[in-house]
Every structure is written in C-alpha cells, then in structure tokens.
C-alpha cells in the first residue's frame, strides 16, 4: 500500500540524496584522478577472491584504485540491465558468459578483449578452452574467468545415509530405492530450493543428458523445430514428476529458497540426504558450518547414471566459470585491462580460491591442489571438469532471456505437477517460436 506518507518520505530521501551527491561531486572534483574504476560482482561463493584481486591491484596502484561492489544474484541481474540500458554501467562487470553476455555484446555494451588479452598465447594457454568458449563469440574474447569452475554435483550428508542404511546412489534405480529408506526415518532424500526455480533446472539438464546426451539441447539452441518434444525430454519430465510423487523432496520445497541458505542448511543440519547443487555450495557450507566438513560428514557424488541411457556418465552441467567483462562505456579501460591481466586469477589469487574450496579453470594446478587442506574435494571438481566429454552451460544461461524465463516457469509448473510432461514440451515449443 503505497501511502502518501511513503511517497513523501521517498521524495524527501530522494531529494536529500540528490543534494548530497551534488555536494559530494563538487567536493570530489579537485582530486586529479576523478572517480575510480568500478567493478561489480556477486556476494557469497568466491567473494573473498574478488576482494583479494582488487586489494592486490590497489596496493600496487594507489593512484588509480578499483572499487568493488558486491550484490546478491537476482537483484544483480536487474541492476546490471538497468545500468547498461541507462548508459551508466560499471567499468568491470561480473557475468556468466553465454546468452546474456551475448545480448550485451549485440547491443554494443562490451569491448572485445582479443587484442589486449586473448591474443597473448601465454595467457590463453593457462585456461581450459571449454571455459573460455563461454565468453568467446565469433573468435573474439569478451570475458576473463575470475573464479572456480562450477560443475553441478550431488552434495551428500554421509552420516544421514549411514543412519538410514543406504549408499549414495550411483544409478537412477538406486536413487529411487533410497527414497523410502529416508521416508521411513521421516526425512526427505533430496533438498531442493524450489523458490529459486533454477534449482529445478539442474535435474532436467542431467536427466536429458544422461538419457540422450548433449545433442538434444544443442538442437534446441540451434532452433530445431519441436526440439522440446524429443522423447528424452518427455522422459526426463516424467522422471521429475516421479520424484515429486514419491515425495523425494523436503516438505514445502516450492517455498524453500537457496539464497538465504535454507536448502543447504537442510543438508548440513541432517534434515535431508542430498542436494543437487553447483560446486559453489562448498564455500557456502564451509562458511556456514565448517565443522560439517571438518568432521568428514560431507560427501559428494556425480549425478547418477540412468539404466539404458545413451549419454556419457562423465558429462557435467553447470557454469564453466564466471567472467569479468569491460563495458564499452568505461572511461578506465586501461586500468580494467591491466587488472584483468595481472591480478585476476594470479598465482596468489588462485591460492585464495583454492582455500575457499573453488577450483579455477587453470591448467596444471594438480600440485597446488594436492597441498590444499580441501584436496579431496578440489581434485574431485578439477578432475570431473577436466575429464568431462561435455560441459553443458546451464540452460537458462544458454537461452535468450525470454525463453529462459519461459523454461523456468514451465519447469516450476512441472515440479508442482500442474502440467503434464507433454504439456511442458508443447509450452516450450511454443515459447521458442516467439
């Protein structure tokens, strides 16, 4: 209820801020360098590494400092869109590569880093090519990896599995068999943060890949008509509804959120057996309840194979990495590029990431990983990524925004059993045509 009181208050505050900012720009002007370089990234996960890189740079370049601002995931996407549209973007912006970065590139908002960074063979050789591919369009490099590779895996509460007398599932049938064992103890096998919707997507991505390999989704992206009607897509949707009907998920899962830590807390507080999540969940658990890891209760397994499935069991889905890109409107391009070249994923920056439980997509890290306190986890992620025949970028990142939203919306309806697998395919085929 927007009361007149609220409106007045907002006006007053707005006016106050405007006056304050007018005052501050006036007083800041005498400083020769003007406003500094601005970088935007996300909170949680690897934020320590982003802060470290900026601190390193600022220490060496006191005359041209970089300011880092951190935002939560969902608001950030909107803030960036508004800033880009309004022509006031930060100099460096965090992104996921893929379809959304492509939209900004097409609108002329991003500078091509090929000449300054991508051409350097020594730089390029350091990174996994499959990761750079997400920020490369038409042989031009538009982004620099800044954090760990993010394959999606099952995080397991080992103690809970022992208590109910089950093993972390290696196959779909084992997974189905584990559900009643957990139910007998009054606990759900799976924790899923349904309020966020992208958490549902991970199940769909893996089911389709295990059933029929990456080609099904590649065809959809390539615009093949009725791509969503592929038998594997329908079967994946049926398997999702099987999980729902067997009550594999925690109670109230459609309202549980990932952002505030509830879904992960279910896992480490011993209330759910497993959570399917990107590798960024490890730093979150480490920062949330380090003792859970220290006491060796946290386990991890790749997504189960499906009996009779044609996909490779080594395939992973997730986000290859996140990137910094430089805005076309930036007035500090030299600073931004220098920062990307020397401080992002520098040797010391990599150490910060590893300590945080993240593995950057950098070649030849085996020795460093072996020395790390989280060696078991890190080498699992490193090897899963390095050996994956296919690393599927999250579907919502690979599709254009309107279609990605339609996908998440219809998938939510599927998880709520409001639509049938067939309706899901039909709705999505329709959404692709718009």
């Amino acid at each position, binding site marked *: 209820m927007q009361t007149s009181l609220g409106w007045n208050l907002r006006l007053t505050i707005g006016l106050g801020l405007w006056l304050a900012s007018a005052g501050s720009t006036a007083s800041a002007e005498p400083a020769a360098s003007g406003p500094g370089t601005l970088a935007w990234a996300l909170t949680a996960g690897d934020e320590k590494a982003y802060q470290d890189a900026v601190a390193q740079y600022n220490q060496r370049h006191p005359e041209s400092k970089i300011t880092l601002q951190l935002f939560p995931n969902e608001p950030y996407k909107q803030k960036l*869109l508004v800033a880009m549209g309004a022509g006031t973007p930060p100099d460096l912006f965090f992104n996921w590569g893929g379809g959304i970065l492509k*939209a900004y590139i097409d609108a002329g908002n991003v500078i091509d880093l090929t000449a300054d960074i991508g051409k350097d063979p020594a730089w390029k050789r350091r990174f996994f090519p499959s990761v750079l591919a997400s920020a490369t369009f038409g042989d031009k490099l538009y982004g620099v990896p800044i954090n760990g590779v993010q394959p999606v895996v099952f995080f397991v509460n080992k103690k809970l599995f022992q208590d109910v007398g089950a093993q972390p599932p290696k196959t779909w049938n084992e997974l189905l068999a584990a559900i009643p064992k957990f139910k007998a103890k009054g606990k759900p096998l799976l924790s899923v943060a349904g309020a966020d919707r992208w958490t549902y997507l991970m199940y769909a991505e893996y089911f389709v890949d295990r059933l029929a390999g990456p080609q099904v989704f590649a065809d959809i992206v390539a615009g093949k008509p009725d791509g969503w009607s592929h038998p594997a897509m329908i079967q994946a949707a049926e398997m999702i509804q099987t999980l729902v009907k067997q009550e594999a998920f925690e109670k109230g899962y*459609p*309202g549980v959120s990932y952002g505030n830590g509830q879904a992960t807390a279910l896992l480490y507080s011993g209330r759910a057996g497993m959570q399917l999540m990107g590798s960024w969940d490890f730093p979150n658990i480490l920062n949330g309840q380090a003792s859970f890891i220290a006491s060796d209760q946290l386990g991890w397994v790749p997504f189960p194979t499906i009996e009779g499935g044609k996909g490779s069991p080594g395939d992973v889905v997730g986000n290859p990495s996140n990137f910094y890109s430089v805005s076309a409107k930036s007035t500090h391009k030299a600073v931004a590029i220098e920062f990307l070249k020397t401080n992002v994923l520098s040797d010391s920056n990599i150490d910060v990431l590893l300590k945080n439980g993240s593995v950057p997509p950098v070649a030849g890290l085996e020795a460093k990983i072996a020395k790390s306190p989280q060696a078991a986890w890190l080498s699992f992620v490193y090897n899963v990524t390095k050996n994956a025949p296919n690393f599927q970028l999250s579907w919502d990142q690979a599709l254009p*925004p309107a279609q990605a939203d*339609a996908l998440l919306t219809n998938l*939510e309806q599927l998880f709520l059993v409001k639509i049938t697998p067939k309706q899901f395919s039909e709705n999505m085929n329709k959404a692709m045509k718009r």
Partner: protein
Amino acid sequence: MIEPTRAERDRGGAGLVMLLPALVLFLGFALVPMLGVFVLGFTRWDGLATPAWTGLDNWREAVSDPVTQDAGWLTVKLMITSWVIQTPLCMFLGVFVAGHQRYRAVLAVIYFVPLLLSTVAIGLTFRALMDPNFGLSTSPALAMLAKDWLGDGDLAFYAVAVVISWEFIPFHTVLYQAGVRQIPRVLYEAATIDGAGRLAQFWYITLPQLRYTIVTSSMLILIGSLTYFDLVYVMTGGGPGFATRLLPLDMFISAFGRREMGRASAIASSLVVGGLVLSLAMVKFSGFARMRSQQEGV
C-alpha cells in the same frame, strides 16, 4: 471585469514560484516517465537495443495471456481481501486508541511498530517464521501452525495478504484515531443524556462522523493493493507457480526476467489507468470531492 489589485497579482506570482519545485519534480519524475512508459507499451524492447514499433501487439498479448489474466484477478482479489481484513480492524483499533487512558497510549505506540520497519525486513522475517523446516511451526508448542504457508499455492496468497495487512494496519489505525478524536464531545454528551448506549453511539455518531476517514483509508487501501509489489516480491517472488503473481509483479517479471519492456510497459499503463479510474470513481460516488462539513449545527 474587476482588475486584480497589485497585491493580488503579486500573491499569484509568489504562489507560482512556490509551486515550481513541486511541479518540476512531479513533471520530471511522474508525468514524463509515465508518458514514456505509455509510448514504450507500443514497442518491442529488451532494454538495450533500439525499441521497435509493434503497435498493439503487446496489449493484445497481455490481454490474451492466461498468466497476466490470472495476475489481474489476483490483484482484484488482493484489493478486496486487504479491504475486508484491514478496514474493520483499523476502525476498531482506531476507536480504541483514540481514548485518552494511559494504557491505550502505550498500546498505540506498540501497534505502531510495524509501520516503522522496512518492508524488506518484514518480508524476510515472516518468510523465516513461516518456513516449514526451520520456522515457528517446528516448535512443538506451535504444531497447529504446521502448514506449508508459502509453499502451498492455496495458502500462499492469504499468508501474504495477512502480512501485508499486518504492515499497514498501524497506518490506517492512526487515520481512524485522528478521525475519532475530531468528533466533538458534545455529540456524545447529548447522546448520553438521550439515553443512547455505547453501541448506539458508535452506530449513530462515530460511524457517520468517520465517513470521510473511511473513504480516505479505503481509497489508500484499494489503490495501494492495486500497485502492491515489494513485500510479495520478497516473500514469494510471485510463486509457488503463479499463486501470488500480482499484476505489478507480472510487470516486473516481464521487464527484468523476460526483458520484454514493451509488454511490461503495457501492463504498467493499464495499472496507471486502473488506479486513476478507481480513485476518480471513488471520489465521485462518495461525495468526497464536495467535502461538506459534517458538523453543521454543532
């Protein structure tokens, strides 16, 4: 024709100057953007590239989209639910705290607290309280509250409506309190002499005297509900499914989730028109515009 005196002319000039800051702000931050939104409603735009003119397409799509239709109905439902919950409660509380006893003054301060909290804080707090796995209902003493408040499509709407009311009841209570305190005491004294009981006094004096307060408060509730956004966004994000996707939220998701600014602008324009029509209608039919004194002969 009577020439205005010099003094009158000067007063007009000064009035205009005084009006200027408000006028500039209103033009710059309300009218001009509103016009811009209206025009954008006829284009296809992703927020980045150049908008492309598409005529009435957005409007046609918005009207025929079942999700947007549902959002429209939900919005109407929220307007009615909010009014039905808030008006009687606020009136009761307002009359109660209008009394001058000290304990009522203390209670009035406590009732006022929700209005001081930020909406986001309220949303996050209630979301945590209503969580089925970690919330209030996990306490054995409150097992009767063990419902999936925000995860069940049928419950989520009412859960949100109740929290919205919780947030805004204090404000409307203050309106009623002020309204009640303005009623001349002599009316009650006269009624007492005539032998009217408390209920009769409320029915024949307080209620009619509060007429314009009721109109004001109802208008704020109805129009506020029409454009309500923030608490719903924080608590449910429109989910589960479409259970709490109100029209303003549908607009927001169209704009920033799907990046269909044109479609979102069409929805926004219809909200503006809806709000305008609603408030004009209420002013006309309630006699609010005439503002006749209710204290003739007092």
